[in-house]
């Protein structure tokens, strides 16, 4: 088990220079825009934009290979499921029916259904790079500080940065305990039965919870001793002031967001873009 997530590396690119706060705002604006539309023209536009941003932030293919495989499996599965459960959903939405291939019973393949499902797949594909960029180019502590800036209580931000800080530690604890139990003869492989495997997971989980509870005591005592939580506000070492590039980035994303809303409410007058009428 390799733990190579959150492999934040500090490179000198435009995206890395932006503060976590503005990247968070841009991420939320663009993902909301994608969520609010089923117009493939806009989706493709945002997709091109976000893949270009990924290029600029110098993310290598090897860094995201696993992610792409997972997403691929998910998308194929979702595509098939949608067709199985709602083969006429596209017809319902667009109001016309052009049958391509006659299928069994209800399962005709229609242009509308294909269009709907392709749009949906494009929707998912276009937001993936945004999340990747955000995770790989933002310093975790800076991310916590930027959440604090948009009004989230600093106690919650601290708990979030503790999560990011201790994730590798807990993962390595899990690994150690799992290896120790396997050395005692626990079968964790696919050969064991499901019920057997649940029991074996419990044998790892109980020691893992105990070490975690111990660790919680140690950390919270240390924080109490340093007077954590005494005041209503806190300052952050990792906070970056906003610069020109941040304002430009936010402005671009805001424009894309507004354009999406404008097209949705004034051009298409619905969430779907209908080329069939």
């Amino acid at each position, binding site marked *: 088990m390799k733990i190579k997530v959150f492999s934040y590396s500090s490179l000198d690119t435009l995206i890395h220079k932006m503060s976590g706060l503005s990247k968070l705002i841009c991420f939320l604006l663009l993902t909301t825009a994608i969520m609010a539309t089923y117009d493939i023209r806009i989706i493709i536009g945002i997709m091109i934009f976000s893949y270009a941003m990924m290029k600029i932030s110098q993310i290598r293919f090897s860094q995201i290979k696993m992610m792409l495989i*997972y*997403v691929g499996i998910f998308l194929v599965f979702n595509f098939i499921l949608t067709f199985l459960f709602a083969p006429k959903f596209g017809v319902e939405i667009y109001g016309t029916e052009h049958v391509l291939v006659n299928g069994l019973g209800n399962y005709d393949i229609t242009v509308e259904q294909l269009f709907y499902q392709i749009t949906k797949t494009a929707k998912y594909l276009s937001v993936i790079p*945004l999340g990747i960029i955000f995770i790989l180019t933002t310093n975790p502590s800076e991310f916590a500080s930027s959440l604090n800036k948009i009004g989230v209580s600093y106690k*919650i931000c601290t*708990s979030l940065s503790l999560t990011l800080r201790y994730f590798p530690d807990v993962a390595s604890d899990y690994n150690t305990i799992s290896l120790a139990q396997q050395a005692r003869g626990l079968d964790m492989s696919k050969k064991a039965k499901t019920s057997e495997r649940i029991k074996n997971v419990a044998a790892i989980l109980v020691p893992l*919870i*105990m070490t975690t509870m111990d660790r919680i005591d140690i950390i*919270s005592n240390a924080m109490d001793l340093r007077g954590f939580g005494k005041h209503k506000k806190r300052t952050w070492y990792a906070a970056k002031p906003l610069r020109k590039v941040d304002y430009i980035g936010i402005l671009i994303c805001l424009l894309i967001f507004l354009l999406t809303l404008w097209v949705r409410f004034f051009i298409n007058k619905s969430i779907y873009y209908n080329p069939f009428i």
Partner: protein
Amino acid sequence: MKNNFSTKTIVATGLGAALFLVLFMFVKVPSPVPETNLQIAYGVSSFFAALFGPVAGLLVAFVGHALSDFIQYGSPWWSWVVASGVSGFISGFAAKKVSSAVEEGRFGKTEIIFFTVWVVIANAIAWILVAPVLDIVLYSEPANKVFIQGATAFVVDAIVSVIVGIILLKAYSATKTKKGSLAKED
């Protein structure tokens, strides 16, 4: 507020979310239904919810699930992430009775029933109501697909949360000193 959200709760929330994330990503026990996994992680979120209350439960499940989606898929599937959070939040109402009892080393029949009832209610609301409705509103997924997915998720997750949660709470309460375990010698 200060007592409700003490330093210990904050730290427990943070580490609980890390633990949830680790289990969510690495421990997947395949269930009999294809393409669905028994997520042991929901046992952890119900454990932390029962000990530290609704807000901690909410954050453990929400942050853990959102981060795991970020790492594995690039972008979170918000409707299910929110539903995870809701299940953690409502499970947290069990803390009223369970938390203090466990700290005193008691986790008997009353606590088990109380815990089970809240966890089942929480999962029902999260997976049968919140997740499918958000799927339809946010992602315009076909209704019958999401309700069947939601119902499956409810059955699987409720069973896992209850069983794993009880095992963990039992084990943890055994490490605590029982109230009145010392008697004064004459």
